[in-house]
């Protein structure tokens, strides 16, 4: 109950992990005992170091992988009961290297999912223009460009626009700002916050960057060695006595002290 109070206006669980484990086909466990729920409208950050199982957890949500133990539910239905194609079109997906199609223009990349979903041409056009404006790209300049003609930051913006194209209620982001230089990164993060304020999507972000987690997350799920170490609001995270969380917080404090010392 107190949990709900903390997260304020945020709604019912839209993604749930119940005793989830995942093993590779050779038996090597990547995830174990994950229990977690993501509520409508919140931004949950999966924070942890490389190999902690963050990306694997994310891939279980849109059925790029199926859990070996337990179950993952999206909108109350087990992912294994969803048609994977329907589920994936229902959930936006942004990855670090953007995965933009190099042979498609910005327009074709962004319009792909609505087109597959059979939207009328006029509506697709309108949607693409609106999305590019939303992510801060002038359609007059960028519509006909190919991904290789864009900077890293612009590509990432197109990646976000593409993930939002069919207006999915849930968006998954795997290190969405990971490949960017620090300044562009800060800029896009800021824009992301503004966009999220407007759209109120349910978002799950994977990152290994503590300050990013604190800035963007309404809650932080700390992962380590394939397990969930704890769930925190940004405030709780900074004050946590849990050793791993405390280590992250200490690293932030050290940085702050270093800056103060100069």
């Amino acid at each position, binding site marked *: 109950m107190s949990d709900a109070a903390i997260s304020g206006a945020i709604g019912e669980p839209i993604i749930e992990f119940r005793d989830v484990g995942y093993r590779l086909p050779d038996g090597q466990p990547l995830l174990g005992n994950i229990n977690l729920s993501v509520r409508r409208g919140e931004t949950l950050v999966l924070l942890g170091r490389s190999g902690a199982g963050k990306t694997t957890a994310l891939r279980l949500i849109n059925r790029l992988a199926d859990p070996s133990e337990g179950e993952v539910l999206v909108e109350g239905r087990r992912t294994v009961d969803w048609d994977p194609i329907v589920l994936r079109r229902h959930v936006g997906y942004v990855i670090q290297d953007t995965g933009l*199609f*190099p042979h498609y223009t910005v327009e074709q990349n962004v319009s792909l999912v609505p087109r597959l979903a059979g939207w009328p041409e006029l509506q697709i056009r309108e949607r693409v223009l609106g999305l590019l404006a939303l992510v801060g790209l002038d359609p007059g300049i960028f519509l006909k460009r190919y991904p290789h003609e864009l900077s890293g930051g612009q590509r990432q913006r197109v990646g976000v626009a593409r993930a939002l194209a069919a207006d999915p209620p849930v968006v998954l982001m795997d290190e969405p700002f990971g490949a960017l230089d620090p300044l562009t990164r800060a800029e896009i993060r800021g824009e992301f916050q503004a966009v999220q304020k407007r759209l109120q999507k349910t978002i799950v972000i994977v990152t290994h960057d503590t300050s990013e987690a604190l800035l963007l997350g309404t809650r932080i799920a700390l992962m380590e060695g394939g397990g969930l170490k704890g769930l925190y609001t940004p405030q709780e995270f900074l004050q946590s006595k849990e050793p791993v969380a405390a280590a992250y917080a200490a690293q932030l404090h050290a940085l702050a002290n270093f800056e103060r010392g100069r």
Partner: protein
Amino acid sequence: MNVTQFFSEHSSEILRATLEHVWLVGATMLLAVAIGVPLGIIVARKPWLSKPILGSANVAETIPSLALLGFLLPIPWLGDRADRVAITALTLYALLPIIRNTAAGITGVDLAVREAARGMGLTPRQILFQVELPLSVSTILAGVRVATVLTIGIATIAAAVGAGGLGEFIFRGLAMVNDQLILAGAIPAAILALGADFLLSIMERVLRPAR
């Protein structure tokens, strides 16, 4: 009589043989692409089938061409017509580069692109036709180019089973120890090979996806 004179005097005969040659090569390439590209897709998609498929194509490549024609002649429907025998043999030779390049093109597609395509909810079919094949076109065409040039050369053997083509001049020239006859077959074949190589290399460049 010099070579130019010989060519102008026998121009209609040379033209007919050249057209026959083009027909043999054209039919072969259509068949080889129709068979080789799907096999290449299977090789890329199902690793356990890649060894048997590539292995068989490799073995076909090692059979001496005259022997292969000989093996095919007694086969019922095939052996009825010389051009069927020739086209079948040529297709078997042309398969390997096409299969190999198709598989290489598809497995070479950026992992992030494939992951994004899956994550966006494209069906395996849509991933193949909208992402993997378009991104592999230039690699596949490079294979087709190698196979075409190869086939234009080997197709001269077709004359051995009476399938016509530029090989007729070469075989006649060999039998009569007449260099001009040999050249009447060899020169147009070389020109065909260079022309095909040039045209396909342009197609390859035009169709290469932007990167």
